């Protein structure tokens, strides 16, 4: 028994010594030892966290989510985070539910570096609560050797129901995104709360399920398209940019006449953040050229930092000539997702029915 105790004490001591490596953790003006950041998977540059940790003598506890809803559930479940990076409609919902705190603009001094097109969007009209991180739109990635580009450009979203390509398509396995496609194809707003329109969109999706036998996938579709498992898929622009850079047969088209989803993912600070000061510093740090460049170079999504965005897309840039990296400017048919509370459950239930039809 005594030996066991000794061993335990030894282990404890070793752990303490281990911590001693970074003796000055917490030695920043906010006195925080840990900053909890909650972000999408595969959504940050390789050195961003490490560099921030060095600069502010803090240890960043970096965790990942794979959907806005999963993130929301976790936050509501009482886990404390200092910085979250959700999408537009989820930010709107969290503002409505009073879950976020206003940002401290005296700390976030890099706001003027932001690309103007990403600011003052309807989910947070004057960016009181959120600072853009990545942005883009949604379109169709297709294999030029199998799918006729003129089919995609003429039929836009309806090409997903072109029976020539039955069995060859990926639908996005998320209710909001799939209903966006259907509603846009029918010429309705993707933020509609009109139940008849939603019902029509549901029938559009059921028809697609029955005639095209699509595979429903999210991130799995990325590899699937690169390796030619299917010939066409609904894709977020940043993932599309990655697919295009890996497989030269692939092309990207964001429907213009029908319009598409023009999205923003942005950084916010929850009300119950334990270290809001440093959280603001983190947001400010992400806006710097260095961090934004690292993010975009690693992930492939369009940066909210104007200079980084231009450098990447222009001549000599990493994504020069990659049509998916530089999202088409928002046109009048494009929309930003709004939080549509009253039909959220209806859409959710219809989506299960689509997949079971």
């Amino acid at each position, binding site marked *: 028994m005594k030996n066991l105790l000794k061993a335990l004490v030894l282990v404890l001591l070793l752990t303490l010594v281990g911590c001693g490596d970074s003796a000055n953790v917490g030695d920043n003006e906010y006195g925080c030892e840990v900053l909890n950041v909650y972000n999408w998977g595969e959504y940050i540059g390789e050195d961003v966290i490490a560099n921030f940790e060095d600069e502010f003598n803090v240890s960043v506890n970096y965790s990942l989510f794979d959907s806005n809803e*999963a993130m929301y559930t976790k936050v509501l479940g009482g886990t404390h985070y200092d910085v979250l990076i959700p999408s537009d409609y989820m930010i709107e919902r969290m503002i409505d539910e009073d879950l976020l705190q206003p940002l401290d603009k005296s700390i976030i001094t890099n706001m003027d570096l932001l690309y103007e097109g990403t600011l003052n969007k309807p989910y947070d009209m004057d960016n009181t609560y959120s600072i853009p991180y990545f942005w883009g739109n949604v379109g169709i990635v297709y294999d030029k050797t199998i799918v006729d580009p003129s089919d995609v450009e003429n039929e836009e979203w309806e090409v997903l129901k072109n029976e020539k390509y039955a069995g060859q398509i990926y639908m996005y396995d998320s209710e909001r995104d799939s209903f966006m496609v259907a509603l846009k194809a029918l010429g309705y707003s993707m933020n509609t709360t009109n139940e008849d329109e939603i019902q029509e969109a549901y029938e559009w999706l059921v028809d697609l399920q029955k005639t095209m036998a699509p595979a429903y996938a999210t991130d799995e579709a990325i590899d699937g398209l690169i390796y030619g498992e299917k010939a066409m898929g609904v894709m977020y622009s940043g993932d599309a940019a990655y697919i295009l850079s890996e497989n030269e047969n692939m092309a990207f088209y964001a429907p213009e006449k029908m319009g598409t989803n023009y999205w923003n993912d942005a950084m916010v600070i929850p009300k119950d953040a334990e270290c809001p000061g440093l959280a603001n510093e983190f947001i400010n740090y992400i806006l710097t050229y260095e961090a934004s460049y690292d993010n975009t170079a690693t992930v492939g999504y369009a940066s909210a930092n104007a200079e980084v965005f231009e450098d990447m897309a222009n001549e000599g840039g990493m994504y020069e000539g990659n049509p998916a990296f530089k999202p088409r400017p928002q046109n009048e048919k494009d929309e930003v997702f709004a939080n549509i509370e009253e039909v959220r459950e209806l859409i*959710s239930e219809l989506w*299960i029915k689509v997949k*079971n039809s």
Partner: protein
Amino acid sequence: MKSFRRLVYPYLVWAIIFIVLPMLMIVFYAFTAEGNSVMTINFTLENFWRFFSDSIFINVLLRSLKLALITTLICILIGYPSAYFMAKLKSNSQGVMVLLITLPMWINMLVRTYAWRGLLLESGLDPEIKVYIGMIYNFLPFMILQIYTSLSKLDQSLIVAAHDLGCDNKKAFLKVTLPLSIPGIISGITLVFLPAVSSFFIPKLLGGGSYVLVGNLVENYFVTTGDWNFGSAISLIMTIVILISMYFTRKFDYSKEDR
């Protein structure tokens, strides 16, 4: 002996925190309405009514049961002969065989299922068949090992006695070996049927997202829709279905033993 009883406390505490409390919370959520605000508690049967009044949900439940049932049956059909021949081998070879069966389990189930995804990618098989392949592959070792354990413990003199009393091989197997290995089959069923009926990852990965099972429903309602009440009701219905099926398998087991 009495002092050892205290050793059970850690498990008791663990069980209360991680099994009993969550279960109570699920029951609570299942019988209430109105989202996550616990301020207003409305007791209701609405969630259950919603499940049973919609053929979609019933179909999903039936499909899950069918998948689990067929998986279990095929596992028995493949597993029993394998276990039988394993038990007949020399004891050295038996060890090797057990090792070979457990070997794949050293690799995480997720990784193996991803491997299957790659293998079946260009097979052109129906998604449903792919799901069955993945399920049977993942659960077969549990069945084989359970049956093998009960067969290897079998007293060989019983079979010799059966032969002495005039049974041929077939009759000796049916009258002696099979009945005595029933407990192995039962625990095999428990280990295969239960996880199979609530599995959601294998169908999701191999079925191309269009193969919805009860597990996927629960995940969807908790994570995506955020409707914890309905999600809890579905899990509770699932739990009850499992309890009923367990009751019948156990009963079958006992009635065999009584004879």
